[in-house]
């Protein structure tokens, strides 16, 4: 590693820039998915910038808390948001200069997100409403089944690149491409898709658009949320989705200027970064589109079928791991 002060300063700037990019485009991606869904249904749909307006509207509203709510309800929205933000700091978005980076940070990323999930579940139960507890128990069930699969998919790449540092994994994949192990990759991609759908509460696991309290998972936990608390929860879920999409797009579509920026200080320029960012956003939109198509073409699964669905992801990830190892 270079120990140049200027480089470090630049690296920090890029790291901050990466987190900012995530924060900036997260609401847009959500609106983009909704827009595609609407167009496919023959509707006009909400504007592409509705996500920002919603957040802005919610922030300016007051928070109403249940009388039975404890301090957990006051802190949980911030903890959830911060934990997602921290995990975003681990993530190299368009350059490998993540704000936080150390060996094993991909595992840290998964479990910092897990901390958010945990506090959201607590929040659901803390409100003493009928549905919060229901949502929490469902969410924890899904999360606990999705997590092993996610770890296995990650280990597939960790084994391949012989590191558990995300930046290194990404650099390696971008350098070598995935043509070395195509079958293993395809299976891992499908497994990853299944987990992303489950973790982000999308159809067929959860329906983000439903008004039926009894069928909700993620929405049930935040049903009592209001004002800036709700804004934080909404923002966290936008961010979580974009983190998963970023992971997927950088692993499964390893093209772009990814590795180039930090290693050649001489070629460091504003234009390169702009180029990288544009490429990244394009990749994100490419990966967000299938989510809309899946949501439009499937019905939600019966809740007790969800474990079967996640089991499919688990099996695929194991096969992927084994195929790589042979």
């Amino acid at each position, binding site marked *: 590693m270079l120990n140049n002060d200027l480089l470090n300063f630049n690296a920090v700037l890029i790291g901050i820039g990466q987190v900012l990019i995530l924060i900036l485009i997260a609401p847009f991606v959500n609106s983009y998915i909704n827009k595609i*869904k609407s167009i*496919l*249904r*023959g*509707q006009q749909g909400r504007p592409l910038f509705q996500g920002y307006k919603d957040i802005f509207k919610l922030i300016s509203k007051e928070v109403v808390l249940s009388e039975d709510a404890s301090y957990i309800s006051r802190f949980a929205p911030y903890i959830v948001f911060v934990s997602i933000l921290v995990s975003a700091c681990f993530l190299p978005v368009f350059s490998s200069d993540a704000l936080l980076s150390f060996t094993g940070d991909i595992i840290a990323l998964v479990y910092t997100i897990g901390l958010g999930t945990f506090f959201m579940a607590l929040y659901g139960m803390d409100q003493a409403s*009928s*549905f919060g*507890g*229901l949502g929490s*128990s*469902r969410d924890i069930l899904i999360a606990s089944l999705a997590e092993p699969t996610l770890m296995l998919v990650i280990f597939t790449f960790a084994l391949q690149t012989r590191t558990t540092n995300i930046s290194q994994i990404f650099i390696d994949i971008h350098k070598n491409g995935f043509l070395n192990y195509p079958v293993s990759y395809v299976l891992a991609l499908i497994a990853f898709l299944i987990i992303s759908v489950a973790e982000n509460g999308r*159809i*067929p696991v959860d*329906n983000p*658009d*439903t*008004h*039926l*309290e*009894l*069928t909700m998972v993620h929405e049930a936990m935040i*049903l009592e949320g209001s004002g800036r608390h709700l804004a934080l929860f909404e923002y966290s879920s936008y961010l979580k989705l974009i983190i998963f999409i970023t992971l997927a797009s950088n692993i499964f579509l390893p093209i772009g200027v990814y590795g180039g920026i930090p290693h050649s200080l001489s070629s460091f320029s504003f234009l390169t970064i702009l180029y990288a960012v544009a490429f990244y956003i394009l990749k994100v939109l490419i990966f967000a589109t299938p989510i809309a198509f899946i*949501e*439009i*073409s*499937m*019905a*939600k*699964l*019966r*809740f*007790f*079928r969800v474990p079967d669905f996640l089991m499919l992801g688990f099996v695929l990830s194991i096969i992927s791991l084994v195929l790589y190892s042979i």
Partner: protein
Amino acid sequence: MENKSVNKQDDKSVNKSGIKSLNKTDFIKNLDNDIVNIINEHFFNRDNELVIKINPEDLKKICLYFFKDLKFYLLSAFAADESKDGGNNFKIRYIFSHSSMDLFIIVETYASADGIFPSLSADMPVLNWYEREIKDLFGLIPEGHPDPRPLMLFPENYPQDTNKNNEINSQYSSDSASCHPLRKDYPSGLRPEFKKYGEYNYNKDVKGDGVFNILVGPVHAGIIEPGHFRFCMSGEPILQLEIRHFWKHRGIEKIAEGKTIDEALSLAEKISGDHCVAHSLAFLSAAEKILDIKISDRGLYLRTIYAELERLLCNINDFAWLFQDVGYSFGAQETFVLKEDIMELNKYLSGSRFNKGVLSLGGINACGDIDELKKKILTEKLSDFKKRYLNLKKALLNSSTIQERFEETGYINKETALDLCALGLAARASGVASDTRKEHSYLIYDKLHFNSKVLKNKDVFARLLIRFYDIEESFSIITQCLNELHAEGTQTSLNDADINIKKYKLNAAILTSTETGVNTAGNNSNNAVFWGLGYCESQRGNIMHFVELDERAKILRWKIRDPSFHNWQLIEFAVIGDIIADFPIVNKSLNLSYAGNDL
């Protein structure tokens, strides 16, 4: 117990088939001797309305005989306040019907002087709500009712009876100790003081490790009518469901008293918004029978077309919501567009998206007439709708993820359906035939070719399939009607109806004068011609109206019974064993009316 009733039924089956082939007038003679002996009086109010008058102490015997032995269906039960001059006279009627015979049996009895009548709920679960309704609205006590909690006038907002004596002629005021709005001496428009009078108690609690309750409603996350559901759960599976409805009691039956038929017709359209045609049809058919108004053939055909359009619209709507509730928004959106197109067609035909104001006493209003141009457009649109509908149906039947949600969810057993007298598609999906169009043919349904499909699968999917059959039959019925529709002259002109009303008034005046002259005993048995039954098959099932007019042709008692009143109770049984996340689908598969239930 089960075997006994089965054996009994076998014994009677010979008898029953005997009844069927015989003239209806001989019906009474073919009943068991001990039943015939306890009948005080019997007569035909109309050719398919057989009235049987009995004493309250024989009520149980005779009702169970019809319900359990002869397998009759209960269609309605209600009280009427016929008190005069400080007297105390409450009549209670039970309407029975049988699927293989065009005959209504009206068992008529009375409450005792201190306002008590025998409860049959323990043996006939369908009477549970009826008896509690009578208790709330009339203050009559169903003696021996297993669950005597208030049904509609909840203790949170309405004063409950405190005095055991049940004083009948107490003066009502806003702070009086009781509130029984359907009594004649209860001033219309009087509201009890707005305060909390007591606590509502749930029926039963489920106790045990890990059992918890989830209370849903009456305010929901979506824009739907109010209903309260209490689920007792252990994890996801539902152990018990208790529903508590009747949050917005409008008092339609009380408002209607003293109103003319036209005024009441406007109320009838508002009983249950989406069943506007069906309810007004049922109400009008009762009124027309009493006033002896004949409707022209063309009027009958037009009424059938509008009734079927409404059935079509409601079924398509339910179909769309089932898509929506399993999260298949693509199919849902397409189906909602189809529904919207049908509503726009309605607007083109009649000027109202719900076909409001189309029916009138004696026929059809001019706005609802279907001339050659409208006929042509209607035919074109229908073939287009049918094509689109068939595509959507194919999409649903080809999707394994959707079918997976519907199959094996929300079982309603045949026994439950029979005990609670399930109506319409809910019954037909559980192997019980129930279709008024076939059983008591009205309008021109006897001339039309259509099937009333009965399935045995009893789950959500079976109910959806029944809807599919109904939609296809509706398309076919409307086409048949349009082919037959040629004669001009829409309605028996309004004058005819007026003449009939005048005739009726004259007749009634004569009858009442002879009654008071001759019949001093006070049992106004000659009133028989003053009332009639109106019924039709709505999309949800049989609608039964009982209309009683006074001598000025104004409403004296109007009992409305929407199919939802029977079918809501099915849900408590349909969800048992299902997981709570599937409740909305079970609920939507029946898609019952809150408003029609809570008058």
